[in-house]
């Protein structure tokens, strides 16, 4: 078991005008127990 | 077997004590927030005088409209409308405070769901509004010469406390309508005026059918019918139970609305509390 497991996570938002915005696209990575993972977007 | 049931009992006891401590903390924090927003000097200098003037105004308006009977009728109702300041405006400020402070996300991920936290923190507002009601009962009663009615109302104060409770539930529910938009002032003022108009506080029931129809589902209406009937020595329990029912209805509505708000903000990402 991992502390954090991300399996192709995506997230889109529909903005006021109806346009959609993709904030996350198929994100997959994991963080082990006691591990520190740094990330930046 | 006996050992395990006794440990289970103590575990349940610990959990109950923990829950009790948690609700006491939430209520205590509510008082902290209330006092930091309304220090005693401000309560004495502006809030109480404003409510006394407001109550006297309604009584005098009752007198101008329908003579001394009108004044007495208005006095009994105006005491209930004094509760709207803390019960509706004050209570709906509790979730709105979280909106402006940006602390709602913390409540969302907390161990205790938002609605009980709001209601717990609202106990301070509820207490303040009951105290305000008592101040208005005495001050306005003496100023407008209604002291005979004032004395008759004292044994009926528990009914006014029930009214305060059902009104606070409505205040909380109405806050959840406006949290998404910047309309909180108009919405809790709207509900306050609806209560003043439609609950038989200042306009006798039966004067305008439309008002009575709306009043049925609003707090205060049934409670005031109970008070007025008790003043004439008539039955009052049935109406008090109806008032409790209306209050529970509004509380359930508040709970559902805050759950819907939370679910929607998780779905759309539009944290309606920001």
């Amino acid at each position: 078991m991992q502390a954090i497991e991300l399996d192709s996570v995506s997230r889109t938002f529909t903005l006021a005008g109806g346009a959609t915005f993709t904030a996350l696209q198929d994100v997959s990575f994991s963080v082990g127990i006691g591990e520190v993972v740094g990330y930046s977007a | 077997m006996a050992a395990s049931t006794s440990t289970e009992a103590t575990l349940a006891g610990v959990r109950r004590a923990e829950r009790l401590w948690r609700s006491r903390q939430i209520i205590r924090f509510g008082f902290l927030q209330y006092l930091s927003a309304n220090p005693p000097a401000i309560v004495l200098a502006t809030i109480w005088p404003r409510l006394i003037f407001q109550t006297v105004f309604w009584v005098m308006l009752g007198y101008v409209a329908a003579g001394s009977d009108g004044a007495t009728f208005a006095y009994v109702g105006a005491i209930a409308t004094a509760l709207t300041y803390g019960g509706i405006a004050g209570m709906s400020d509790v979730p709105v405070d979280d909106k402006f402070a940006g602390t709602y996300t913390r409540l969302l991920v907390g161990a205790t769901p938002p609605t009980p936290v709001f209601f717990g923190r609202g106990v301070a507002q509820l207490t303040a509004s009951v105290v305000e009601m008592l101040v208005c009962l005495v001050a306005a009663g003496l100023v407008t010469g209604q002291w005979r009615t004032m004395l008759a109302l004292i044994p009926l104060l528990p009914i006014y406390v029930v009214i305060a409770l059902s009104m606070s539930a409505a205040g909380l529910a109405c806050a959840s309508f406006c949290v998404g938009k910047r309309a909180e002032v108009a919405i809790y003022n709207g509900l306050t005026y609806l209560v003043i108009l439609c609950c038989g506080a200042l306009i006798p029931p039966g004067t305008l059918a439309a008002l009575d129809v709306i009043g049925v589902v609003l707090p205060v209406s049934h409670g005031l019918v109970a008070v007025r009937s008790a003043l004439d020595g008539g039955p009052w329990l049935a109406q008090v139970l109806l008032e409790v029912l209306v209050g529970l209805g509004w509380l359930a509505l508040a709970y559902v609305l805050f759950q819907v708000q939370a679910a929607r903000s998780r779905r759309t990402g539009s944290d309606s509390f920001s």
Partner: protein
Amino acid sequence: MIGTDVLLPRRQRLWNGIGVLLVCARFQMAEIRSSWIIIAVTVFQPIVFLLITLLPSADRSAAAGTRVAVGVALSVSWAATAWGAASVLRRERAMGTLARALAGLVDARLIALGKGLGAAMLSNVWALATLAVTLIALQQPVSFAHPGALLVGYVVLIASGSAIGLLIGSVFVVTRYGAQVSAFLTFPVILLGGMLIPSNLFPPPLSWLSALISLRWLQEFLVTSAVGSPNYLALEVAVLLTVAYAVGGIWLFGRIAQKARRNGSLDLY
């Protein structure tokens, strides 16, 4: 002296001053329309006051209806002013824009007065519209004997509202409890101002108080203009009081702004 720029000739400065007043008024009206606060005071309140006064009372004649309608219009106008103009300064302070207004080239009092004017104009127009609709819904007859005089009285009402707004608005430069103070200010004036409740119902010391409130004289003038012949003396007293409020407001606002600048209490939110 209210001035926008001391270097310009007097006539030019006066013209600039009026320009600033109108810009601030329009700005304030746009801001109020964007928030819902105005609805509470100028739509809900007139309906509530009108129904509570008219429904229980037996006398539904045109004269009685007019007296109540004028009383409600003035009471609501006061509530809108106490709240509108006051919240103008309270919001300026909360947003930190008050400090910028005080430091700006244009005299802050002109800005406050202009915004108060915008608040007063918008709220009175909305209150009047609501009143008209409610009176029609109740089929309550009212009379308009001298429309011209009524219009003059109405203009004085708006001027009075802005001046009072500046007077009580200056309180918000120093206190952070503006909401509670403005809520408090509403009812004493509505109660003792001789509008919906005749001041002769109160024992002497209190009934004299209403003499200091311009709205009480406007009530007298507007009712006599609508029913019978206008009482111009009452109008003159109202105008005198309005000027007194304006001068008082300008002086008080200046002193308080100076004090706030000395104690640095402007940015203490």
